Protein backbone atom coordinates (compact mmCIF):
# COMPACT_ATOMS: atom_id res chain seq x y z
CA UNK A 1 0.00 0.00 0.00
CA UNK A 2 1.20 3.47 -0.75
CA UNK A 3 0.46 6.49 1.37
CA UNK A 4 1.34 9.86 0.03
CA UNK A 5 4.06 11.46 2.06
CA UNK A 6 4.65 15.11 1.60
CA UNK A 7 8.22 14.92 2.92
CA UNK A 8 9.31 12.60 0.17
CA UNK A 9 8.55 15.23 -2.44
CA UNK A 10 9.97 18.00 -0.34
CA UNK A 11 13.19 16.04 0.07
CA UNK A 12 13.37 15.37 -3.65
CA UNK A 13 13.22 19.08 -4.26
CA UNK A 14 15.97 19.64 -1.76
CA UNK A 15 18.10 17.00 -3.48
CA UNK A 16 17.66 18.80 -6.78
CA UNK A 17 19.02 21.96 -5.21
CA UNK A 18 21.84 20.07 -3.50
CA UNK A 19 22.77 18.43 -6.76
CA UNK A 20 22.82 21.75 -8.50
CA UNK A 21 25.38 23.10 -6.07
CA UNK A 22 27.50 20.02 -5.44
CA UNK A 23 27.37 18.16 -8.73
CA UNK A 24 29.44 19.82 -11.31
CA UNK A 25 31.83 18.92 -14.03
CA UNK A 26 35.29 17.84 -13.05
CA UNK A 27 36.18 21.51 -13.27
CA UNK A 28 35.95 22.70 -9.67
CA UNK A 29 37.52 26.13 -9.54
CA UNK A 30 37.52 26.54 -5.77
CA UNK A 31 40.08 23.79 -5.36
CA UNK A 32 43.66 23.90 -6.40
CA UNK A 33 44.91 21.56 -9.07
CA UNK A 34 45.81 18.73 -8.54
CA UNK A 35 43.08 17.28 -6.32
CA UNK A 36 44.39 15.02 -3.58
CA UNK A 37 43.03 12.44 -1.22
CA UNK A 38 44.87 11.28 1.87
CA UNK A 39 44.46 7.93 3.56
CA UNK A 40 46.05 7.48 6.93
CA UNK A 41 46.79 3.99 8.17
CA UNK A 42 48.64 3.06 11.32
CA UNK A 43 52.05 2.85 9.68
CA UNK A 44 51.33 3.98 6.19
CA UNK A 45 50.13 7.06 4.41
CA UNK A 46 48.67 6.91 0.94
CA UNK A 47 48.20 10.06 -1.06
CA UNK A 48 46.36 9.85 -4.35
CA UNK A 49 46.13 12.71 -6.75
CA UNK A 50 44.37 13.20 -10.04
CA UNK A 51 46.64 14.61 -12.69
CA UNK A 52 45.49 13.71 -16.16
CA UNK A 53 47.84 14.62 -18.96
CA UNK A 54 50.87 15.11 -16.73
CA UNK A 55 53.96 13.10 -17.55
CA UNK A 56 56.04 11.45 -14.83
CA UNK A 57 59.14 13.45 -15.77
CA UNK A 58 57.24 16.71 -15.26
CA UNK A 59 56.38 15.92 -11.64
CA UNK A 60 58.72 16.69 -8.78
CA UNK A 61 58.01 15.35 -5.30
CA UNK A 62 60.00 16.58 -2.32
CA UNK A 63 59.90 15.99 1.37
CA UNK A 64 60.49 19.30 3.11
CA UNK A 65 60.46 19.27 6.89
CA UNK A 66 57.16 17.57 7.74
CA UNK A 67 55.46 18.41 4.47
CA UNK A 68 55.28 16.75 1.12
CA UNK A 69 55.63 19.18 -1.73
CA UNK A 70 54.39 18.22 -5.16
CA UNK A 71 55.39 20.56 -7.94
CA UNK A 72 55.06 20.10 -11.64
CA UNK A 73 53.81 21.32 -14.90
CA UNK A 74 50.93 20.22 -17.02
CA UNK A 75 52.24 21.03 -20.44
CA UNK A 76 49.68 22.08 -23.03
CA UNK A 77 49.19 19.53 -25.78
CA UNK A 78 47.53 21.97 -28.14
CA UNK A 79 48.24 21.58 -31.79
CA UNK A 80 48.22 24.26 -34.45
CA UNK A 81 44.64 23.57 -35.36
CA UNK A 82 41.39 25.48 -35.31
CA UNK A 83 39.84 24.53 -31.97
CA UNK A 84 36.08 24.33 -31.51
CA UNK A 85 36.36 23.89 -27.77
CA UNK A 86 39.09 24.45 -25.22
CA UNK A 87 37.97 23.40 -21.77
CA UNK A 88 41.05 21.82 -20.25
CA UNK A 89 43.52 23.70 -18.09
CA UNK A 90 47.27 23.74 -18.34
CA UNK A 91 50.09 25.27 -16.40
CA UNK A 92 52.38 24.88 -13.45
CA UNK A 93 51.19 23.68 -10.09
CA UNK A 94 52.44 23.31 -6.56
CA UNK A 95 50.78 21.58 -3.69
CA UNK A 96 51.98 21.21 -0.13
CA UNK A 97 50.62 18.53 2.14
CA UNK A 98 51.38 18.57 5.83
CA UNK A 99 51.98 15.04 7.02
CA UNK A 100 50.39 13.83 10.26
CA UNK A 101 53.58 12.08 11.41
CA UNK A 102 57.23 11.79 10.51
CA UNK A 103 57.92 9.39 7.67
CA UNK A 104 60.75 7.15 6.63
CA UNK A 105 62.73 9.14 4.08
CA UNK A 106 64.16 6.07 2.40
CA UNK A 107 60.95 4.25 1.72
CA UNK A 108 58.78 6.50 -0.41
CA UNK A 109 57.07 5.12 -3.43
CA UNK A 110 55.34 7.11 -6.14
CA UNK A 111 53.43 5.62 -9.06
CA UNK A 112 51.73 7.34 -11.95
CA UNK A 113 49.06 5.30 -13.65
CA UNK A 114 46.16 6.37 -15.87
CA UNK A 115 46.65 9.97 -14.81
CA UNK A 116 46.54 9.16 -11.10
CA UNK A 117 49.57 9.70 -8.93
CA UNK A 118 49.77 7.60 -5.79
CA UNK A 119 52.41 8.16 -3.19
CA UNK A 120 52.99 5.71 -0.36
CA UNK A 121 54.89 6.81 2.70
CA UNK A 122 55.86 4.77 5.73
CA UNK A 123 55.87 5.99 9.30
CA UNK A 124 59.39 6.53 10.54
CA UNK A 125 60.60 4.23 13.29
CA UNK A 126 61.11 7.00 15.84
CA UNK A 127 57.55 8.25 15.34
CA UNK A 128 56.08 4.91 16.31
CA UNK A 129 55.02 4.48 19.93
CA UNK A 130 57.65 2.78 22.01
CA UNK A 131 57.03 0.79 25.12
CA UNK A 132 59.46 1.54 27.87
CA UNK A 133 60.32 -1.30 30.16
CA UNK A 134 60.51 -0.58 33.86
CA UNK A 135 63.50 -2.19 35.34
Amino acid at each position, binding site marked *: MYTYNFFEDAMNLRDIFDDFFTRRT*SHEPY*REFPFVKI*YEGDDRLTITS*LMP*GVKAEDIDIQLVDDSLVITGEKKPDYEEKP*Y*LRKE*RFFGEFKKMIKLPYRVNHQNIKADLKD*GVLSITLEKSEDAKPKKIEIL
Partner: protein
Amino acid sequence: MATDKNLTINENHTNKVYVPLADIYETEDLYSLKLEIPGVPKENLDISIENNELTISAKTALDAKPEGKCRYSEFSSMDYKRSFRIGNDIDRSKVEAKLENGVLTLLLHKHETVKPRKITINQIN
Protein backbone atom coordinates in the same frame (compact mmCIF):
# COMPACT_ATOMS: atom_id res chain seq x y z
CA MET B 1 9.63 9.05 6.47
CA ALA B 2 11.89 11.86 5.47
CA THR B 3 15.28 10.39 4.95
CA ASP B 4 18.53 11.98 4.06
CA LYS B 5 19.93 10.44 0.91
CA ASN B 6 23.34 11.87 1.55
CA LEU B 7 23.84 9.74 4.62
CA THR B 8 23.15 6.52 2.80
CA ILE B 9 25.16 7.27 -0.27
CA ASN B 10 28.19 5.35 1.01
CA GLU B 11 26.21 2.20 1.54
CA ASN B 12 24.90 2.16 -1.99
CA HIS B 13 28.34 2.85 -3.45
CA THR B 14 27.00 5.04 -6.16
CA ASN B 15 29.81 6.94 -7.74
CA LYS B 16 29.13 10.42 -8.92
CA VAL B 17 29.12 10.81 -12.64
CA TYR B 18 31.23 13.67 -13.89
CA VAL B 19 31.35 15.35 -17.25
CA PRO B 20 34.96 15.17 -18.41
CA LEU B 21 36.54 18.30 -19.83
CA ALA B 22 37.22 18.22 -23.54
CA ASP B 23 39.30 19.92 -26.18
CA ILE B 24 38.02 19.57 -29.73
CA TYR B 25 39.49 20.64 -33.02
CA GLU B 26 38.44 20.13 -36.60
CA THR B 27 40.61 19.78 -39.66
CA GLU B 28 39.79 19.05 -43.27
CA ASP B 29 39.69 15.31 -42.74
CA LEU B 30 39.00 14.70 -39.07
CA TYR B 31 37.72 15.82 -35.72
CA SER B 32 39.95 15.33 -32.72
CA LEU B 33 38.60 15.06 -29.19
CA LYS B 34 40.68 15.01 -26.05
CA LEU B 35 38.97 14.16 -22.77
CA GLU B 36 40.38 13.97 -19.27
CA ILE B 37 39.39 10.81 -17.46
CA PRO B 38 41.95 10.13 -14.73
CA GLY B 39 41.73 6.79 -12.95
CA VAL B 40 40.15 4.87 -15.80
CA PRO B 41 41.95 1.87 -17.31
CA LYS B 42 41.40 0.96 -20.96
CA GLU B 43 39.07 -1.94 -20.17
CA ASN B 44 36.64 0.26 -18.20
CA LEU B 45 36.08 2.57 -21.11
CA ASP B 46 33.05 2.38 -23.32
CA ILE B 47 32.75 4.42 -26.49
CA SER B 48 29.68 4.07 -28.67
CA ILE B 49 27.99 5.82 -31.53
CA GLU B 50 24.25 5.55 -31.77
CA ASN B 51 21.82 7.71 -33.71
CA ASN B 52 24.25 10.56 -34.32
CA GLU B 53 25.31 10.55 -30.70
CA LEU B 54 28.80 9.71 -29.59
CA THR B 55 28.83 8.58 -25.97
CA ILE B 56 31.89 8.09 -23.85
CA SER B 57 31.32 6.42 -20.53
CA ALA B 58 34.04 5.33 -18.17
CA LYS B 59 34.16 3.62 -14.81
CA THR B 60 36.84 4.52 -12.35
CA ALA B 61 39.26 1.97 -10.97
CA LEU B 62 39.85 4.00 -7.82
CA ASP B 63 37.14 2.19 -5.89
CA ALA B 64 39.69 0.07 -4.08
CA LYS B 65 40.53 1.99 -0.94
CA PRO B 66 44.06 2.03 0.39
CA GLU B 67 44.85 0.99 3.92
CA GLY B 68 43.55 3.24 6.67
CA LYS B 69 40.99 5.98 7.06
CA CYS B 70 40.35 8.78 4.63
CA ARG B 71 41.63 11.92 6.33
CA TYR B 72 41.25 14.49 3.63
CA SER B 73 39.60 14.43 0.26
CA GLU B 74 39.22 16.85 -2.58
CA PHE B 75 37.57 14.45 -4.97
CA SER B 76 35.23 11.50 -4.77
CA SER B 77 35.66 8.37 -6.83
CA MET B 78 34.06 9.36 -10.03
CA ASP B 79 32.70 7.81 -13.15
CA TYR B 80 32.57 9.80 -16.32
CA LYS B 81 30.01 10.25 -19.03
CA ARG B 82 29.72 12.67 -21.87
CA SER B 83 27.81 12.67 -25.12
CA PHE B 84 28.42 14.59 -28.28
CA ARG B 85 26.10 15.07 -31.20
CA ILE B 86 27.89 14.24 -34.41
CA GLY B 87 26.95 14.84 -37.99
CA ASN B 88 26.69 12.53 -40.95
CA ASP B 89 30.06 13.67 -42.19
CA ILE B 90 31.80 11.31 -39.79
CA ASP B 91 32.72 7.83 -40.94
CA ARG B 92 31.40 5.53 -38.17
CA SER B 93 33.81 2.77 -39.07
CA LYS B 94 36.87 4.99 -38.83
CA VAL B 95 37.17 6.09 -35.23
CA GLU B 96 40.50 5.84 -33.49
CA ALA B 97 40.87 5.95 -29.72
CA LYS B 98 43.99 6.31 -27.63
CA LEU B 99 44.28 6.45 -23.86
CA GLU B 100 47.39 7.98 -22.40
CA ASN B 101 48.07 9.35 -18.90
CA GLY B 102 44.38 9.65 -18.16
CA VAL B 103 43.70 11.56 -21.36
CA LEU B 104 41.54 9.96 -24.01
CA THR B 105 42.16 11.04 -27.59
CA LEU B 106 39.49 10.26 -30.15
CA LEU B 107 40.04 10.78 -33.84
CA LEU B 108 36.83 10.86 -35.82
CA HIS B 109 37.63 10.66 -39.50
CA LYS B 110 35.34 12.26 -42.02
CA HIS B 111 33.85 10.44 -44.98
CA GLU B 112 35.88 10.57 -48.15
CA THR B 113 32.99 12.23 -49.92
CA VAL B 114 32.91 15.27 -47.66
CA LYS B 115 36.63 15.90 -47.71
CA PRO B 116 37.64 18.87 -49.82
CA ARG B 117 38.82 17.85 -53.23
CA LYS B 118 40.94 19.78 -55.56
CA ILE B 119 39.61 19.98 -59.06
CA THR B 120 42.20 20.20 -61.72
CA ILE B 121 41.49 22.40 -64.63
CA ASN B 122 42.35 21.05 -67.98
CA GLN B 123 43.48 23.65 -70.36
CA ILE B 124 42.15 23.09 -73.81
CA ASN B 125 43.55 25.14 -76.59
